[in-house]
Structure formats: structure tokens, C-alpha cells
């Protein structure tokens, strides 16, 4: 009762203060103003103003030209290749990334530590270097191309080459997100499943995989997002034939070289929105999965 009174009194006397609290909670630590000012200035200069320029430019040419630019058959073919190959590469990485993460966490074998460190190579290796290296390997007469050629499989300068490059570039994401989740997985859960009579396969399917699923999904979506935007490692191996093996990022550059700034901006906006949509969708899915697992637990 007294508390209620007090709350009402609080609300009255502290009206201006509630306004202030709404913007920032009080803290005794110094440096809020400085760090806020610095961060916002930096972000505005580096990110916000240039992004605004992108959206403004894509809109400047008018709806008709925007639509024409993004629906051009050559552009549409590049969407198909980019998104299709990216999706396929992310799926391949989900499967093999899971196996690799499992082997690295659960088993001990010679060379494990070196392989573990090497998984990050696609992050560390400049994309141009990966691009020419992959091309050299899969080209006619290359180390692998030489053996694939007689089988009728052409990798370099075909969509298959795009897939190889995108698989390379997305490899670390799934491994690096699944690994910690696997390490955190309590051994007791598996032991409990076994004590309840589950076989190894049942334990894997009903206990381990569901627990790893959120991490796997995160890794998959990160690999997918990265693959959609990838440029450096792809252009060397793709061959860049219009309608066949041309990715969307390259088309933006082609437009730029033709001084079609509005066209380049329009395609860029489509790609940006696709990436954001993807990330947003995956976050929503993640939220849903987490919530379900928490309720279930």
C-alpha cells in the first residue's frame, strides 16, 4: 500500500527524469559522450552517408529504368546463377562442415590441430589468391582438371567452377559455428539417451542433431550470405560468359565500367535487399527455433 503510494509519488516528481532515462540509463562510468560522438561520426562518414548515396542514386533514374535495369534477362540469369550456386554451396558446406566439426571435436587423429587451424584459411587468404589458385587447379591440364577432363567434367569457366569457389569461401562458417556448440554439448545428454535404451544412431538423430541445429542454421546462413556477395574468388574461375557463368557482383562492375551508375546502383539495391531479407529471415527462424527449444526444455 505504502509502496503503491510511493510509486505514484515517484511518477509525479520524476517526470522529466523518466524522459531522460528513456534515452539513456544512468551510469557512473565516464566517456559516454565521447564514445557516442566518435562512433556515430565514424559510422556516418563510413557507412550511412555512402549507403544513402546508393539508395538515392538507384531511385534517381525513376521507377521505369530501375525496373528495366533489374529485370534485364542477362541480370536475371546472373541472379539465378548467384543465388542458386550460393544456396548449393551453403548446403554442401552444411553437410561437410558438420562432419568436419564432428571429427575435429570428437576424434583424435594425427594432423588434427593443423587442420583445425587451416579451416580459417578462406578467411585469411585474399580472395584473388584463392581465385587464381582454384582456377589453376581446375583448368585444363591443372592438377585436378587433368583427371576430370577425360570424364567429361569441366569445372573451370563453367557454373560448376562458381560452385567450387563458393564452397571454398563458405567452408569455415559452418565448421566454426558448429564446433563450439558441439564442445558445449553435455556428454550426460548422450549418456542419458543411451541409458534410456537409445542406439547410437537414434541418439544422433533425436538428441545431438536437434541440439546442434541452431548453430548449423547460423553457419549455413552466414555461408550463404557470404557466397551471395562473393566476388574475388569467383571471377577468375567463372569464365564470366553472359547468360551462363556471370555472377551479379560482376554485372555491377560491368555497369560501372559502362558509366551506367544508376543501373549499377539498382542491381546493388536488389542484392542488398536480398541479403538483408535473408539475414532477417534466418534471425526470425533462429528466434523461433530457440523459443521452441526453450519451451520444450
Amino acid at each position, binding site marked *: 500500500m505504502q509502496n503503491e503510494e510511493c510509486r505514484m509519488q515517484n511518477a509525479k516528481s520524476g517526470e522529466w527524469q523518466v524522459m531522460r532515462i528513456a*534515452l*539513456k*540509463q544512468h551510469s*557512473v*562510468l565516464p*566517456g559516454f559522450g565521447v*564514445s*557516442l560522438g566518435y*562512433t556515430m561520426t565514424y*559510422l556516418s562518414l*563510413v*557507412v550511412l*552517408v*555512402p*549507403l544513402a548515396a*546508393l539508395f538515392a*542514386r538507384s531511385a534517381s533514374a525513376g521507377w521505369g529504368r530501375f525496373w528495366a535495369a533489374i529485370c534485364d534477362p542477362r541480370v536475371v540469369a546472373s541472379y539465378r546463377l548467384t543465388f542458386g550456386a550460393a544456396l548449393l554451396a551453403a548446403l554442401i558446406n552444411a553437410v*561437410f562442415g558438420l*562432419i*568436419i566439426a564432428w*571429427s575435429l571435436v570428437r*576424434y583424435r*587423429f594425427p594432423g588434427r590441430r593443423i*587442420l583445425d*587451424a*587451416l*579451416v*580459417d*584459411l578462406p*578467411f*585469411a*587468404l*585474399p*580472395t*584473388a*589468391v*584463392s581465385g*587464381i*589458385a582454384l582456377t589453376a*587447379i581446375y583448368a585444363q591440364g591443372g*592438377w585436378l582438371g587433368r583427371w576430370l577432363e577425360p570424364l567429361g567434367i569441366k569445372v573451370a569457366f563453367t557454373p560448376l567452377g562458381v560452385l567450387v569457389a563458393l564452397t*571454398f569461401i563458405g567452408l569455415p562458417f559452418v565448421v566454426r559455428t558448429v564446433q563450439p556448440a558441439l564442445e558445449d554439448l553435455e556428454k550426460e545428454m548422450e549418456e542419458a539417451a*543411451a541409458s534410456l535404451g537409445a542406439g*547410437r544412431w537414434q541418439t544422433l538423430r533425436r538428441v545431438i542433431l536437434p541440439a546442434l541445429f541452431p548453430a548449423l542454421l547460423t553457419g549455413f546462413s*552466414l555461408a550463404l*550470405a557470404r557466397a551471395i*556477395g*562473393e*566476388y*574475388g574468388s569467383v571471377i577468375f574461375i567463372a569464365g564470366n560468359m553472359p547468360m551462363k557463368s556471370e555472377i551479379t*557482383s560482376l554485372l*555491377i562492375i560491368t555497369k*560501372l565500367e559502362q558509366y551506367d*551508375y544508376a543501373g*549499377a*546502383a539498382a542491381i*546493388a539495391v536488389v*542484392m*542488398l535487399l536480398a*541479403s538483408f531479407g535473408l539475414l532477417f529471415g534466418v534471425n526470425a527462424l533462429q528466434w523461433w527455433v530457440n523459443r521452441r527449444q526453450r519451451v520444450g526444455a
Partner: protein
Amino acid sequence: MTEPAWVRWLLIGVSVAFLGLFLIVPLVAVFSEALRGGVGAYFTSLIDPAALSAIRLTLLVTAIAVPANLAFGLAAAWLIARFDFVGRSVLLTLIDLPFAVSPVISGLIYVLLFGLQGWLGPWLSAHNVQIIFAVPGIVLATVFVTFPYVARELIPLMQEQGSEDEQAALSLGASGWQIFRRVTLPNVKWALLYGVILCNARAMGEFGAVSVVSGHIRGETNTMPLHVEILYNEYNFVAAFAVASLLALLALATLGAKSLVERFSGAGQRGGGAA
């Protein structure tokens, strides 16, 4: 409790084969192609003036971008991990943005802003300032693609550590700068180093974004990755792979440094910073 031996070895075999095919073969190919013409040809292509100028430019760009992003990372992490304010999560999302954006688009936005047909282009050319197809543009594009790295390493760590240490220092009479230098910085030094290593690797190796803003002027606006591309497109494979091998060495050094930092910081947490 584990799988039967044949399953175990099958999984290990698949992992090793996949990693070997996708990681080790390309890595070895870089060095093998670079040395195809012999050691002499290898070094000749490295001391070529255009190659040297590309190396110099890459070092210059990195020397600007990494410290700038280090300062940004510290400020942003202090802001986000130590204060609760409206718009905090929006800011966090903004910091992640370069990870979601194609590098080509990262370059494009600067062309649209500073290029001759861009928003500020006419004004800039009237004042004789060139940003696009010049070094400032390359620096800007590099800063953009690398700015999340330091902040992303610091923010989760500082959030997890909480601000009690800083409050304790404050109650003992330390000033803001003293708190930062003597308490905060030592607590996050490994994460900071980790972020700097990743930031550095990306800054030296960035290709897509830099390619859009560079203009590819040999000896002037070519960074090492761009120089690799030009040599390759000229069918000068040995020289292209020679420069590429330097970048591959950088990548290996990065991986090594990363592993070391991981080990030290792990030991630091266990041994209470006894290192």
C-alpha cells in the same frame, strides 16, 4: 561411448579429404605455380617496380585502416558494452553491416558518393580533390570492409566481463583515462590483438571493394591483390603467383598468430593473467 571404429575412420577420412581438396591443394598450388619458373624468376617478379609499388601501397593502406578501426572498435565497444541507451541494438546491427554486404557494393557506394558522376564528385573535382581512382578511395573502401573486426571481438567479451572492475577502480579514485588504460585495456588485450590480426589480414587482402574504387593504374593505385589480377589477366602466371604467394604467406602467418593468441588468451583465463 563412441561410434564403431569404421564409422570413426570414415568420418575422419571424409573430413581430411574435403579439407585437403578445398584447402591444402589450392594452398600448395599457389607456391608450386609461383616457383614453376625457378627461384630466379620468382624473385625477379617480386622486385619488379610495379610489384614493389603495389606492396608499398598495400602497407600504406593497412597502416591507415587498421589503427583507425582499432580506435573505432575501442570506442564502439566501450559505448555498447558499458552503457544502456536507446538505439543500442540498431548500432550493433550497423556494425555488422559490412559482413552482409558484397565487397563490390562496398566499393560502389563510394564511387556513387565521390565519383565524377557522384553526389560530391563535381564539387571535389572543382577543388582538385581526387578520391575515387586514387589512394583515399582505396583507404575508405578498406576501412569500410574491415571496421567490424575489432569491435566484434571486443563487444561480447566486454559485455561478458561486466563493468564491476571499472566501478571498483572508480571507487578507488581512478580517473576515466586511468580506468581505461589500467583496467579495461589489460582485460581485453587478447581479444583486441585477435581483432587486429583479422582486421589486418582483411585489409591487406581485400580485393572486390578496392577493385571498384582503384582504377587499376599500375604503379599508382594497385594494391597487391589487384596487381595479382592484372598479372594473371596478362597471362603472366609466374609473376601473378609469385605476388600471390606473398599474400598466401601472410594468410599462413595470420592463422599462426591467431592460434597463438587463442592459446595464450586461453592460458590467461585459466592462469589468471599470469602470462
